[in-house]
């Protein structure tokens, strides 16, 4: 019995060690980055700049939350950047006062364009999800196809032109403040909170981990694997729809070339945050830190006035460095 309790205490340490490595490792990297930046630039820690960083992280953050769901099941969603553009432009066309770019009757009350933006995302996600889950086409191919198709639809829908002059109500979601906090930051916080709760506290969340960890086991335990796989693409694209509206609202007009290569940053946030691309392992808190690392890095290098060429080299090194600090994940994670 002595040996038993001894072993138990050993297990406990291992568990703690894992938690430390998995979550706080990357958190540590984030802290180090933040400390370096605040030492080297006086403006970095000003409230205005912190608000900037959060604001600039919000869109990638929303996308990364959705991406976490997909990657946890072992999938990937390359289409988010294009869905951002499509949802952004379609919703904007219901919220513009411009006579040329609007759909008939626009501008509509703000809930209409908002609902439509989410719906456009959900529709794209449903199509990708169906093809991935039901027809078992690899997620990479499916969402690469959607990347191309959604971009094409965006250009067709807007005739290749932006949709300008959005109503102030619509723009509020991108530019408004609540108690001094930018609206997109609040939206990200709410989405993150819901995602955290879903992934850690609900059955659906645990099923996502189970499907990613061992689809066969999930299936033999009676879980509807096809439905779970379908759902995560809907979530990811639905959030991309929201991100698209945030982007339009922030820039003040919906651009057809918006969101190009956003998928890379979103996936990077997820992977930096410790989620394994092969699915089944990862935490949404890590994703948030991953998105913050990317945001802080972009902001900090701009603040320090580092020339853009050197910024790119530094960014590459910093990303790899941050994950290296978060050492001793097992290979392939």
């Amino acid at each position, binding site marked *: 019995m002595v040996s038993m309790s001894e072993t138990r205490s050993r297990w406990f340490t291992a568990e703690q060690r894992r938690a430390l490595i998995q979550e706080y490792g990357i958190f540590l990297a984030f802290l180090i980055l933040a400390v370096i930046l605040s030492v080297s630039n006086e403006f970095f820690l000003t409230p205005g700049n912190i608000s900037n960083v959060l604001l600039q992280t919000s869109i990638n953050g929303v996308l990364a939350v959705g991406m976490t769901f997909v990657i946890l099941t072992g999938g990937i969603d390359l289409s988010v950047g294009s869905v951002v553009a499509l949802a952004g432009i379609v919703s904007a066309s219901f919220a513009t006062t411009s006579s040329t770019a609007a759909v008939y009757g626009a501008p509509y009350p703000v809930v209409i364009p908002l609902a439509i933006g989410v719906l456009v995302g959900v529709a794209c996600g449903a199509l990708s999800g169906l093809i991935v889950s039901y027809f078992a086409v690899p997620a990479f191919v499916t969402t690469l196809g959607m990347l191309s198709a959604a971009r094409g639809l965006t250009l067709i829908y807007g005739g290749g032109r932006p949709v*300008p002059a959005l109503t102030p109500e619509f723009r509020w979601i991108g530019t408004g403040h609540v108690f001094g906090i930018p609206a997109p930051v609040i939206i990200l916080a709410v989405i993150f909170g819901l995602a955290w709760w879903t992934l850690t506290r609900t059955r659906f969340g645990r099923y996502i981990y189970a499907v990613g960890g061992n689809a066969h086991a999930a299936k033999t335990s009676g879980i509807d694997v096809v439905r779970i796989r379908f759902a995560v693409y809907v979530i990811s694209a639905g959030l991309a729809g929201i991100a698209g509206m945030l982007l339009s609202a922030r*820039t003040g007009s919906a651009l057809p*070339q918006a969101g190009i290569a956003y998928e890379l940053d979103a996936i990077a946030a997820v992977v930096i945050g410790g989620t394994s691309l092969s699915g089944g392992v990862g935490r949404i808190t890590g994703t948030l830190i991953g998105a913050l690392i990317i945001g802080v890095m972009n902001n900090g290098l701009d603040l320090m*006035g580092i020339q853009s060429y050197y910024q790119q080299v530094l960014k590459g090194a910093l990303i790899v460095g941050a994950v290296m600090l978060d050492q001793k994940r097992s290979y392939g994670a």
Partner: protein
Amino acid sequence: QTAKLKIGAAPYGLNAEFMQIWSAALQQHPAVKNGDVELTVFDGRYDALVQNDQFKSMVTQKFDAIIFVPIDIDAGATGVQTAHDAGIPVIGSNTRVNSDLLSAYVGSDDTVSGYMEAKIVLDKIGCKGNVVIIEGPIGQSAQIQRLEGNKKALAECPDVKVLEDQTANWSRAEAQKLMENWLTAHPGQIQGVIGQNDEMALGAIEAIKAAGNDVKSFAIAGIDGITDGLRAAKAGEMTSILQDATAQAQGAMDLAIFYAKKGDYKPESDIWAKYGKDMPWNDGKDKEYNVPWTPVTAENVDALLATRQ
């Protein structure tokens, strides 16, 4: 009536508004509308090699003439060579090509616009104070030449300091982030914003607004005259220098038909009448046609906006 002319247009990419206006102007050319010319527009997808390949396709399909907007001044030469070897005339438009095989070129001198926009900003701040420059993708000829123009104007105002100088890759969203960060790093110090295109100037405006500043207290300029830029100009938030995409496109089309018909053609576009002696047709003999830049002013902005309906 002889067989239709097959003319190909190869712009570097169609995802942004300027080239969209440009290619729409081609479709509006009288010869295309009345069916004398069958026009095909190839999207270069922002890749020199893709454009190269499209030249090969056009040669395979025996086009009669090609209108070309290269992504890069040097890389375009290969495509021109390919077409020349097959005996197809190539007319440059908007962006130069480093090739003497080009039959003719219709474009606007980017160094001039770079100079003009910087001059406007500098004049507005009284030739002293601090400015920032938001550049296009480094290495693209428009960026290189506009920067050259910017620098020329800045040299005339030695008291002006360039606080920051960074690329935002022609993108509004990128410029917005950049400006947000610059406003933090240089609180209250930036007086002027030289955006190398309208998109980026507009991004800067959004950042300034979001930071709670008065846009009108900044001197901001951009280039191209895209629709949003015109609107902002009308609101007095910025100055835009109109690059006449229609003239560049339709002028090139007239020249393309002219060379395809071996000189047996009179221009049909009304742009020649519009510019008159500023850009004479000269019986199609010129190698270079310089479409003048037009600063957007309170007087002409409404008329320009009307053309975008």
